[in-house]
């Protein structure tokens, strides 16, 4: 009996060794440990074993059963491990991924505008807006631009038959905001479209995008203007960017400046690039606003402010090295997908 058990154990372990999949393993289990299996058959023979041998045979029987059970478990884990490895066989992980819905992108102009807005909001500016179809008063008169100013003619500005016009700058939003203001301070930015009667070419669009800023309070100084815009352009172009202010002329600010930043173009020496116009709000603008409001919220004796404006299309071109402004309105996907974030 004992020798039968030993040879059974040997046969079982050999069968386990030979099993190549889980069903073969199950067959081994059934053959040896199943109801009609050989180990089960032998254990049923225990009743015929003489009493004095019972203990020894019983222990042997247990040992064989345990060895086979453990053998099955071990073999099962080994077979699973082999199977797990096979699950990824033949996969070429270097193939491209599934495209899903594909990649879209925000227009570069939107991205630049958002960068500018996020930066200025951190500096306490709120957004403001106004109509693109404007009155002459909001676009010119209120901004101290005389009625015979060169910009105010049908050669340079789009007019409607009813005498209104398409705003030539977002500065008209300054006027709209001051007209409606309930109290000081005013600290706003106004991104938006503006129109000029320019033929479209590599550097001009008849409809373009600006960002206007206005801060009005008691005792706003040129120092505030300088500090604010230096900070802004360094946030946009990098901390070390050189910023300079050149005296200039705008009808609605005095003193007025143009702002240059020093930037490196690819492979070229850094050079000054004109980026924005700015200045202290001309008292004549406050006077005109007061007249329209019928009060003196903008008392020219005590109220001062600064304003600035920059071209977003130009900013996008400078930032990204775009060589032709028409790319910004043609929406060629080969262009747009370069700006997928």
């Amino acid at each position, binding site marked *: 009996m004992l020798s039968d058990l030993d040879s059974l154990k040997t046969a079982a372990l050999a069968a386990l060794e030979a099993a190549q999949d889980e069903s073969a393993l199950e067959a081994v289990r059934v053959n040896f440990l199943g109801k009609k299996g050989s180990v089960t058959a032998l254990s049923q023979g225990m009743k015929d074993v003489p009493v004095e041998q019972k203990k020894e045979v019983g222990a042997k029987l247990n040992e064989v059963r345990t060895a086979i059970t453990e053998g099955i478990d071990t073999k099962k884990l080994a077979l699973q491990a082999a199977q797990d490895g096979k699950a990824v066989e033949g996969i070429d992980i270097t193939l491209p991924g599934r495209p899903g819905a*594909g990649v*879209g992108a925000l227009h570069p102009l*939107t991205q630049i505008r958002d960068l500018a807005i996020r930066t200025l909001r951190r500096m306490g500016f709120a957004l403001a807006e106004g109509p693109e179809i404007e009155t002459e008063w909001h676009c010119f008169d209120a901004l101290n631009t005389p009625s015979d100013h*060169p910009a105010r003619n049908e050669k340079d500005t789009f007019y409607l038959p009813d005498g209104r016009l*398409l705003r030539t700058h977002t500065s008209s939003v300054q006027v709209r905001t001051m007209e409606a203001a309930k109290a000081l301070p005013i600290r706003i930015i106004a991104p938006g479209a503006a129109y000029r009667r320019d033929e479209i070419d590599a550097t001009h669009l008849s409809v373009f995008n600006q960002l206007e800023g206005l801060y009005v309070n008691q005792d706003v100084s040129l120092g505030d203007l300088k500090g604010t815009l230096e900070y802004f352009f360094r946030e946009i172009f990098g901390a070390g960017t050189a910023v300079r202010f050149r005296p200039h002329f705008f009808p609605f600010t005095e003193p007025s400046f143009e702002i240059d930043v020093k930037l490196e173009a690819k492979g070229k020496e850094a050079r000054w690039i004109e980026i924005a116009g700015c200045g202290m709000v001309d008292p004549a603008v406050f006077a005109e606003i007061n007249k329209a409001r019928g009060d003196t919220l903008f008392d020219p004796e005590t109220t001062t402010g600064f304003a600035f404006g920059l071209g977003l299309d130009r900013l996008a071109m400078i930032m990204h090295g775009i060589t032709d402004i028409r790319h910004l*309105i043609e*929406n060629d996907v080969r262009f747009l997908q370069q700006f997928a974030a």
Partner: protein
Amino acid sequence: MQVSLSWLSTHLDLSSYTVPQLSDLLTFAGVEVEGIEERGVATDKVVVAQIQSFEQHPNADKLSVCQVDDGSGALRQIVCGAKNFKAGDKVPLALPGAVLPGGFAIKEGKLRGVDSLGMLCSGKELGIGEDTGGLLIMAADSPVGTPFNKLNPADVLFDLEITPNRSDLLSHLGLARELAALTGLPLKGERHHASTSTKAKAAGEEQIVIKAAEACPLYTARIIKGVKVGPSPEWLRRRLESIGLRPINSIVDITNYVMMEMGQSLHCFDLDKLSGGIVVRTAAEGEKFLALDGQTYALQTDDLVIADSERPVAIAGVMGGEETGVTEGTVNVLLESAYFAPSGIRRTSRRLGLSSDSSYRFERGIDPQQVQGGSELATKLILTIAGGTAEDIVQVAGAAPALVGEVTLDENRARKLLGTPDMTGDEIHAILEKLGLTKKSANKHESHWIIPSYRLDLQRSVDLVEEVARVIGLDRVPSRQVAVASPVEAADRTYDFAMNLRQSLAARGFFEAQTLRLIADAQLADSLGGGQGVAVKNPLSEDHTTLRPSIVPGLIATAALNIRQGLHRLRFFELGRVFLTLPKGGSREEERLAVLLSGPVSPTSWHGREPQPADIHELVGQIQNLTRTPLEVRPAKENSDNYLLTSELRAGNRILGWIAQLHPARAREINARHPVYVAELLISALRQGNTGPTKFEELPRFPGMTRDVAMEVPADLPHAKVAAFFATQKHPLFVGAEVFDVFADPSGAKIAKDRKSIAWTLTYRSADKTLETAEVDAAHTAILTALEKTLPATVRR
């Protein structure tokens, strides 16, 4: 404006400044330098040489070895690569030690083993021409050994942008005055602008009559007889040519010279072609005028003209007449120097589309005090160059208007505005004084200033502050930043909402487009939403005539462009403004979002077959996901010619926008390979469903149970009708229903052609307990019974 450095140098000695320093000086004074051109050579080491002989270089086919006379007495050997000369030609020779424009230094050396003691030069190498065809061959009478720059003086030309407020800088004298103020260098030579000692006499009525005193407050005339008109002398021609003016004849050149020298625009008439005295008057309606440019202009009653007793002889301040101009045959001239008011000149010049150097200056405003000085300088030059005798009086009609006066500067406010609290009164005074202002009086906080007559821009206290800012520059102003908190504005919320939509669409694979808001009439038929755009009165071209009433036309143009590039899977959106003409006049602007979709639902890849082209339900689904509002799609009664399936997108009573399929005929026009679907949504309507923070709803505590139902309905029964039925069911256990299958068979084999099979899943739940099967069955039966009563549906049981 072109400005010559050598001309400027006649007024002040700028030799201690380099060209870049001068450029910076001007730039930071508010005069933008748009270009700098260096002409000729400053060095004396380029001289006139004569080629005595030349022979082939022994070691190089393309070189010649020349023996040249450099004026020193000995011949000099030069190796030269040019071919365009012969023995005896006179050419520029750069001697060793010369530095040519661009920094090229000339040294003695050997070329292919042969000594070369200098270089023979082309015009381009000397910065005086573009011709690269070989050596610059000089005039035969050029004296050998003479420095080249004696014959062709070196100069630097600045192309300056003068801002419209600084008309006083539109002349060499004006710029010299400004540079003198900025550098502290003394002005030299004649100042011209002061009145001169010449006797001036009020003109008798028969000589000059001003009938439009507002437009022409001051007019002077001087008669010079017996002039000989011919070419101008070399110096005058060179001055004019250096700044890009073409010499014409001595008299005309002198008037141009005076204008560029001191900013006073003059005009000379041929006295013998005038009949009677001068009348300054407005034109008669429709009066014709033949100008110097050969064009005939039809004038209006607000145009100012200079006339004789018969006809206009000049459009005042803009252009003289063809018939009375000075020619080679002119003997007697009448020299006009006047002040014309800017607004009239500007109006006439714009209306006629006629501008000149003269009108440019008058419309920006000239110094009325220089009118006689200009006449004096021109007279002097005419007598010197063209001879003749001048009447010793200047006939004057009217008087110089006082355009500037005194300005009081509040110095405390100046310091506050500048942000320079430490700036002293003395510093402020010194700046204004060097700019030519005269201090009349001053106390602790205020000073009173007399403004020079040429500074028309200095009228108010703040104008003086600007002068101080300009001179000290912003480097002197300490940067300051204040923290100001601004309450959120409506515009902020709209912006954030719009940015979320944009980002959401980009994440779904859509490309954001930005198209021009001005579109062509032909594009209007592509509009969605039914509004009428706003036509511009003066469009630039027929491609951009109207402010768009819809964004979709721009997206269709975008699709067309990309299809031309071979792209057929199109996913675009644009968020921006549209413009609608209101029925009762006026217009409205609103923000919209347009989406265009065409082609396969996903990009082609190696994974399998070409994905299915999107259908309109794809776009409905995209919008559904974007808006997160239950959408109702309500077919419109009519389609425009360019669309099919036009439908309103609604949420309850709100119209959110429109959706449609581009008509296949229109789609073929843009060569679309797949159907093109578009939608346009109103941002304000989308936002309405989006106010305030989301309110949390308790999660159901007990499981729900579902029952499916399949039914046959007429093929034309819209889904919306069935959905509406379920939406109105009030059974307490019924939660909602969703369609999960729609089946129709156009062949009629599986289901009759006029029928379709639809299947829905209904969900039941109680808030209080887990439902028993029997309870759900009872509720389901009740709803199905109601369904068959309400709709033409046969439930399959």
